[in-house]
């Protein structure tokens, strides 16, 4: 298995370097190969990670929990790598070839590097290396947000890099206190490895652990998009190139949430489950309510989807706070289903923006008439995000609510259902207007006549794969996957 894990760390990095130095026309070949290969590698880890913890070279470690997040990132990286080929082909079509080549080179190199950093984070065995990996994701993605070189992109990138770096500063402080707590028991040469820390968590001093957990929730929570430190998120998601938005939303937020879960494991061992769960509940409910307020009245399709991400991260936090095994299983399933659904929604929105030449919802009309594949696929993604059966998100949210009711958290479960319902109305109102309202004749788009047809098959295939994943997760998750989730739930220390 070590070969698979090492390959996961080498393949995307090699792809990034290759895209940076080799002729740019090779990048659209290298990137999809790297993306799909990484997804294959992550899939190959499922059977082993479902039965034991894989630990190598003292700094690499994959257990069931990290494998879940690897799956989400691996799938989305693969899908987006394929999608990007079509996206880049139609990007800046009116600019000269030299400009387009430079853009493509930067984009592909950055995308692979971003994928690499996000795949590396859950593989790291130490909280310090985890922090470094998450910080690298910030740096790379900030450059990818700025790549469009517009006023909006420059503004979004600056806000993102400043707010996220400040947040990660707090996360670094959390790492320092985690080391302090661990070194009291494990000695000075303790290297912040996760599993020994969880092993001795019952004996750790309380105050440093409590402090580390709070700082981690606030610090990594900045990157998850928890209220009130979510403010960079809608800007970055709306101004980044669409494939990057999909990765930010489906994979990066989840990777940061993974970091919080690691601190949650330690904190609930030391402090008992009460304090960590209450903290997550507060952040989760606040984020959900904020998203429910903001999905209405959004004019930019990508901003709308960004607020939906805030909602789903809130759902994850609330689900963990319930603590019941079925709710935790729901949370982990939700990570996977959200990656597929949000990836699809962004990729669909990206096809709309390529076709119509704008992100403004009011200008996107008659989608079903002009986009025979992407239109319906986008609608399916929005319905999936709103937890319509038979999508995977329906199953996961059902499990979370069921777990909440079963563990006596009636009020929080009720808020969850209400919030999700409100967001459903907000999302579907915009989506149905985009798809079913015919385009007004007098406001014919500036980019010439819109002919019926997809911009590129490269952009449709990954969305079809996403729908397949959503259906599999919703109708009948494979036995290996449920075994993996069950093992991860035990690691999270589920109690009723």
């Amino acid at each position, binding site marked *: 298995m070590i070969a698979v894990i090492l390959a996961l760390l080498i393949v995307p990095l090699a792809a990034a370097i290759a895209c940076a130095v080799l002729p740019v026309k090779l990048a659209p070949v290298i990137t999809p190969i790297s993306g799909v290969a990484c997804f294959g590698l992550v899939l190959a880890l499922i059977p082993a990670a479902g039965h034991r913890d894989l630990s190598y070279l003292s700094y690499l470690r994959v257990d069931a929990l990290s494998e879940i997040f690897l799956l989400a990132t691996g799938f989305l990286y693969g899908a987006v790598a394929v999608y990007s080929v079509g996206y880049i082909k139609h990007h800046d079509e009116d600019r000269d070839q030299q400009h387009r080549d430079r853009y493509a080179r930067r984009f592909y190199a950055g995308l692979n590097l971003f994928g690499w950093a996000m795949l590396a984070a859950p593989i790291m065995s130490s909280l310090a290396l985890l922090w470094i990996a998450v910080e690298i994701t910030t740096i790379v993605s900030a450059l990818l947000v700025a790549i469009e070189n517009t*006023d909006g992109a420059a503004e979004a990138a600056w806000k993102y*890099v400043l707010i996220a770096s400040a947040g990660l500063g707090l996360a670094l402080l959390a790492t320092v206190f985690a080391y302090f707590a661990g070194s009291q028991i494990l000695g000075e040469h303790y290297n912040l490895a996760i599993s020994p820390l969880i092993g001795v968590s019952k004996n750790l001093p309380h105050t440093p652990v409590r402090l580390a957990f709070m700082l981690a929730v606030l610090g990594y929570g900045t990157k998850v998009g928890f209220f009130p430190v979510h403010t960079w998120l809608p800007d970055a998601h709306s101004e980044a190139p669409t494939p990057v938005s999909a990765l930010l939303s489906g994979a990066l937020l989840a990777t940061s949430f993974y970091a919080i879960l690691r601190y949650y494991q330690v904190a609930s061992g030391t402090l008992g489950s009460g304090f960590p769960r209450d903290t997550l509940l507060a952040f989760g409910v606040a984020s959900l309510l904020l998203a429910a307020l903001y999905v209405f009245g959004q004019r930019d399709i990508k901003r709308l989807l960004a607020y939906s991400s805030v909602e789903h991260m809130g759902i994850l936090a609330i689900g963990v706070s319930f603590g019941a095994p079925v709710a935790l299983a729901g949370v982990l399933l939700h990570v996977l289903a959200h990656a597929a659904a949000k990836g699809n929604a962004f990729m669909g929105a990206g096809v709309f923006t390529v076709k119509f030449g704008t992100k403004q919802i009011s200008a996107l009309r008659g989608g079903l008439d002009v986009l025979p594949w992407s239109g319906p696929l986008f609608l399916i993604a929005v319905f999936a995000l709103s937890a319509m059966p038979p999508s995977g998100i329906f199953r996961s949210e059902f499990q979370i609510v069921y777990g909440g009711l079963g563990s006596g958290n009636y009020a929080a479960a009720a808020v969850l259902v209400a919030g999700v319902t409100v967001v459903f109305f907000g999302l579907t109102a915009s989506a149905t207007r985009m798809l079913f309202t015919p385009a007004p004749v007098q406001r014919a788009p500036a980019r010439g006549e819109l002919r019926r047809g997809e911009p590129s098959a490269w952009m449709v295939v990954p969305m079809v794969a996403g729908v397949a994943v959503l259906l599999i997760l919703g109708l009948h998750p494979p036995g290996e996957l449920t075994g993996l989730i069950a093992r991860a739930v035990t690691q999270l220390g589920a109690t009723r």
Partner: protein
Amino acid sequence: MMSGVQAPGVYEGAANVIAAGMLLLEFGMLRQALVRDQVRLYMAQSALISVLAIVIAADRNLPDLYALAALSAALKVVAVPLVLRRLLRRAGLDDEETRGVAGSNTLSPATAVLAGIVLAAFGFFCFGALGIHGPAAPTLALALAAAMVLVSFGLMIVRRDVASQAIGFFSLENAISLAALVVASGLPFLLETGFLFDLLVAVVVFGMLIRAHHSRSASLSTADLTKLQG
């Protein structure tokens, strides 16, 4: 040994004095109007961090920390200020007063310092009350580091230009290094260098984004970054 108040040892005394000096420099940055003076204060603050690392290395016999002190000095006293200065020069900011950097305080210097004192006191007393202590963790220095973290956040908030905000972030990183040195001096060398390397990359990226911002808006002010709302 008598019970009651004990004189601090060399290490603890040095840590406390250096931490207090760093906090004062942070206040200096908060009130300083010109970016190039802020960069100087940042250099001094970073030099203090390296001194502290050497003191700890000698006192607690941790040879790794000498190397860390050297690396940290090379990066934070030499490289980061160099990058920042070059950036400012390239942006043609020798006449800073006219470019919206000098007047970028949202508060008057006096009010900003008062707010800083409130923040610092809050952080200092909160951390003092937590009572985190260990064989190698002087409570006072840790509380001062917490105060510095909050003041550096204050600095990022009250300034409306990208250069000062970046310096605020770098000094936040100094505050965290201080906390790390006093509570986690034994942290393995590999990880410490990882953090430093990360800072280096962050500096480069901050620099690139500052340049991008400057080339678009011909100023370093963030006052016009208001397009993305809601």
